[in-house]
């Protein structure tokens, strides 16, 4: 099992969700977050006072999948989020040890989908 974390541009979310759905991966957790990568942030100015270390709004997706779905999942995100510009984001893939479905108590491979 893999736990896939992706940081993408907020305006690419709809595209990515559609692609994931097409690959039979409908289960996803999405949150708004702030961050900066090589794109850096845009510093803000309030009454001439510069706020250093600006951050940009990003969207974070977290998806838990069985091993055979990992590659399609990464492809779906990459295809949906890539524009070719700096700031498209990153995907992190982690090994996932356990998974429990709260309603039934089922575990691991069965519980994940």
């Amino acid at each position, binding site marked *: 099992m893999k736990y896939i974390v992706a940081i993408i541009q907020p305006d690419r979310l709809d595209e990515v969700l559609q692609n994931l759905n097409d690959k039979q991966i409908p289960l996803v957790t999405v949150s708004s977050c702030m961050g900066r990568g090589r794109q850096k942030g845009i510093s803000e100015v309030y*009454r001439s006072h510069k706020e250093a270390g600006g951050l940009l709004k990003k969207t974070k997706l977290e998806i838990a999948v069985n091993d055979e779905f990992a590659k399609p999942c990464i492809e779906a995100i990459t295809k949906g989020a890539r524009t070719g510009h700096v700031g498209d984001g990153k995907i992190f893939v982690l090994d996932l040890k356990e998974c429990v479905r709260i309603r039934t108590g089922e575990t691991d491979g069965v519980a994940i989908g």
Partner: protein
Amino acid sequence: MNSGDTAWVLAASALVLLMTPGLAFFYGGLVRRKNILSVLMQCFMMICLITIQWVVLGYSLSFGPDVKGWIGNLSWMGLNGVGQEPNADYAATIPHQVFMIFQAMFAIITPALILGAFAERMKFSSFCVFSLLWATLVYDPICHWVWGVGGMLRMQGAIDFAGGTVVHINAGIAALATALVLGRRKGYPDRMSPPHNLPFAVLGAGLLWFGWFGFNAGSALGANGLAGNAFITTHIAASAAGLTWALLDWKINNHPTMLGMITGAVAGLVAITPAAGFVSPVDAIWIGAGVSIICYFFVSFVKVKFGYDDSLDAFGVHGIGGIWGALATGLWANKAVNSAGADGLFYGNPGQFLIQAKAVLVTLVYSFVVTFVLLKVIDAVMGLRVSEQDETIGLDLTQHREAGYTIIE
């Protein structure tokens, strides 16, 4: 008694009241999320607390029968003798009670203006004690000097149409004293978060602008041509100042900013306050443009150079803008606008400028000294600042046990 005048001053009183919640949102949007309620609460507390102070004591000290030019006596305490009949000394065509409640709104907003300088770090209990004593020991005397019959600055010929000296210079310099006595917020200036809700600040500025028509045009105390002139000069000066600040931002910081534009507009409203019923509409443009240039310089460079934490620029905008407005009244005042006023320097009477400068100086010195001593005394008795840990957690939770926003339902 005139029904039109009475109707207008009643409506204007409601407009001026609205400025204090407007100010609450103007300031509230500029603080961090954890302190929004503390600012709104302080503003509302001023409405409730100062209203009672005014009725019981403040109105009599400010406008009651004069004692040697310094203060009103206590014969109007509890509104004794302040009834439905006009008081011809102040406003011959409206009920005395209506004049009293119009002035009450000014007494409320003045201490509320000061909180911009000590936002995010003052104990609420100390704030209440400070504000009550400040209203009694600073606002009421200065109000009497400038507007009270027999008041010493009024007798010397200083003109202040709607409270540039009494309200803005007074609150502005007191704000500087509080910023100096309380010290900087933790993390100032390099580790501060940006304003948490600029749209709130814009909404607040809009309400201030709207309410200011009552503040300035209402100060004509009648529904007449003078009220119209004050209304128009108020609007023109605010517009000129907002525009000027935006252009300065554009030129100096490369981008016009929303915060800059509303800061300029408020500075313009401050500057035109003493002049509104004494200057012509076209001269209001110069007063508005001038105030933004001066305040921009102060807020952007002077404050940074000296390093005091006037958190929301109460001194930078109200103090400095108020000083400019009072002096500018001595430059552009014009008897063709208001025969009861005076001619300024540009209309052949340089003496008026000096009289204005003297009134400014007297207000600055008295307000600063008394505020400074008052703060030191309160600090010694009960402390002014919250603990460092409480400051980090935020005043909403530590002073009021409430949160402005929920993040998780």
